[in-house]
């Protein structure tokens, strides 16, 4: 039996100690916003916050989580989808299929907590999540929007909607 503090609530779960936190969250706790994409810490779809740090939950055994640890999943990032990252993402219509976006949003939120004014280089380094729909371009712009930083790259998404009508 493990005791987990997820999104401010305590859950008691019965699982084998080697069960990855991802599957405890999805199958025992029932929060399915955190996705499975690779299971080998390569894609970032399973990103959560553990004590404020972004962590890939697919390789983290539940037994490694201490009772005092604070886990935040995408469902708990904000009460009403009002996190600046969520808002910027919606404004720029970042998501396509959306499957990777829980992880992208969690990674970006963690980046902004550490570096409120990230540079493009900071973004390149922190955002190693995979998106097969290829929303990278707007992710970059949305991070700058959420941070209030304005760079050449941040103009990109809005430029792209322009046409020569």
């Amino acid at each position: 039996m493990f005791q987990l503090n997820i999104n401010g609530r305590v859950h008691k779960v019965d699982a084998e100690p080697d069960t990855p936190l991802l599957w405890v969250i999805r199958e025992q706790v029932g929060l399915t916003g955190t996705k499975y994409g690779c299971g080998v810490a390569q894609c970032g779809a399973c990103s959560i916050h553990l004590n404020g740090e972004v962590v890939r939950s697919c390789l983290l055994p539940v037994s490694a989580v201490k009772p005092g640890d604070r886990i935040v999943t995408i469902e708990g990032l904000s009460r009403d989808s009002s996190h600046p990252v969520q808002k910027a993402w919606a404004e720029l219509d970042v998501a396509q299929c959306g499957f990777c976006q829980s992880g992208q949003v969690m990674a970006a939120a963690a980046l902004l907590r550490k570096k409120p004014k990230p540079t493009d280089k900071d973004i390149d380094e922190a955002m190693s999540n995979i998106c097969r729909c290829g929303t990278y371009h707007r992710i970059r712009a949305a991070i700058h929007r959420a941070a209030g930083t304005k760079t050449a790259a941040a103009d990109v998404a809005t430029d792209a909607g322009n046409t020569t009508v």
Partner: protein
Amino acid sequence: MKKSMENIGSGQAQNQPENTARRQFMVGSAAAGGGLVLGMHLPFEIAPGIAPAAAQGAAASEINLWVVVRPDETCVIRIARAEMGQGTLTGLAQLVAEELECDWSKVATEQITPGQNLARKRAWGDMSTSGSRGIRQSHDYVRRGGAAARTMLLQAAAEEWKVPVGELSVANGVITHAGSNRKTSYGKVATAASKLTAPDPKSITLKPIKDWKIAGKPLRRIDGTMSKLNGSKVYAMDVKLSGMLHATVRECPVFGGRLVSFDDSKVKGMPGVKKVFRLNDITVAVVADTWWRAKKAMDALPVVWDEGPNAKVTSASIDAHLRTGLTSDDAFADINTGDAIKAIAAAPRKVEAVYRAPFTSHTTMEPMNCTVRLTADKAELWIPTQSAEASMAVLSSSSGMPLDKCEVYAMDLGGGFGRRIGSQDVVRQGVAIAREFPGVPVKMLWTREEDQAHGLYRPIAMARLSAGVDAQGKLAGLHVRVSGQSINAFANPAAIKEGRDRRQLQGLWDTLEGDAQIGYTHSNLRTEYAMRNTHLPVGPWRGVNTNQNGIFLECFMDEVAKLANRDPLEFRRELMSERPKHLGVLNAVAEKSGWGKPLPKGVFRGIAQFMGYGSYSAAVAEVSVSGKGEVKVHRMVFALDCGNYVNPDQVAAQIEGSVAYGMTTLHSEISVDAGRVVETNFHNFRVMKIAEMPKVEVVLPVTGDFWGGVGEPTICVVVPAILNAIFAATGKPVHNLPLSKQGLTLV
């Protein structure tokens, strides 16, 4: 009312997310009085700010197939095509809403199921979503549907007020009779409208496109944007049903091999394991109470395979097989104008090159999965599918349940790209598993490793191209020989007529038929295809054969231009006088990119144009290559002419996405060793990430006299434009992918 979706998870959930917002699907008949509720609950996504269509189901009125109006003024627009991120749902709703003249902020959507379509004799038409057809093949009838609904709503108001309908006007769902200064709204007249006879859709005159107010505008998506950002969107992988079990499968890693045996004594006692069994001759399945436990048991399961006749196949042996097709005499000529071979032989200068475009995989972010429940009188399937009707056909054939007792809940896809259209392989597996547990829903989810190992890969191809240049520096002749695997031979042999599989020459066709015409004409031109199949299963991959053929033709064109000592843009233009639309996008991209203007030191440009899916694409890439062979793509500019634009911002998003999807082929291929796929997960199938993503700019020249696709057309120019820029930077053409084959890396 029968529940078909539940929200009960296993385990000790204390704050179960409301992750299965339900809505009620109205299946009504106007003739029968409208609003006849058949009561079907579907798992469905409700867009933010839009009230669920579910509530007040009984009071909602079906005006016609496409439009349901609720008393609270919500206009529910029905969508028959699949949404996989490409934005078709939003575009289709814009087209209906444009003619309906409703309030866009009060639009909601609902997905048709194939069972509903079947029950109404396929009144909603084709539901499949591939070939970039979602909008270009349904824009006319969905607009007519919106216009017919508007006509009926106005007629209802006219009858109530006893005034001629011609005296009414409507805007944003508010109907006005100026003469008597009366107003009413769609929500108020919907019940009466639903009882009227529908006008003949053909009698309707559609709005001129220049008058569009909703369609053609860069509106935000309405397919549940915030639900994708707060974890509430339910993908098929997230479906929860009462008593559900979980399965995973393993198929023989070598295609053509067989399952010999497995030792289930090692895993039977593992926690939660319910069943380990032979699913078919090539597949073993494990079912458990959670997916993780099923996967863990599968990992521990000793399996013996008979790897069969292909166990020694390697990428090298496949390449050797394809190479025989470069010079063999079993090819057929498709375009054969003049005598290209003779003209090239007689030319003072000639160039020849062999290109190779390897296999690649779809690798959708959501791994393949489905959930099946079989009861005595019903077969149900929850699946991310590009063709809900094809999924239902396979559900029926493999379960033995007649079609009218089958239903498919097509969930929005976590990526499709062509993988989820054709063979419906997961449905067959899902049904075989569910058969073992009658009445119990079983969710089958592939591991990423299974997904990589059992794709329907983009076919491998090679090409030998030769050209001559005359004394004036003009093209004397061009000969293109493609050798490679055929998708039709694997998936649809009946499409191959008289041994000529023209599909593999997509984008090199001389007519517009097939929507992928070659952009050049010449008096000595020959295109050929020699079929060289392999043991890998293949299928359509975003852009399909325009990917390989775009690389072959457009990269070689730069080699010929160089031989002629000509600017690649100028050299192309000379061959395009009979192809005004191809030339139009080429000129547009040249202008927008500043072709010919100075660039920062070390940065070089490449250009390419190609056609696919009824649309014309051109791109310019700006690239630098370091001394260590590091390739940096700084900026890409695109011109896409798809005729009419339903949502230019979503067109731009598709172009941006095609850049990332295309550029991944610079990093990675699907290679073969010991008969199996080598790239088993993202550690060795390297996918492009944000750091490599260039700035993307888009120009959309408006021609307006046709409807082309959007999701696939631009990918075929992404790689050639970049490779041509590398050629400009290094003087060395790139003949093989991924880049590592030529000592280059994308950074």
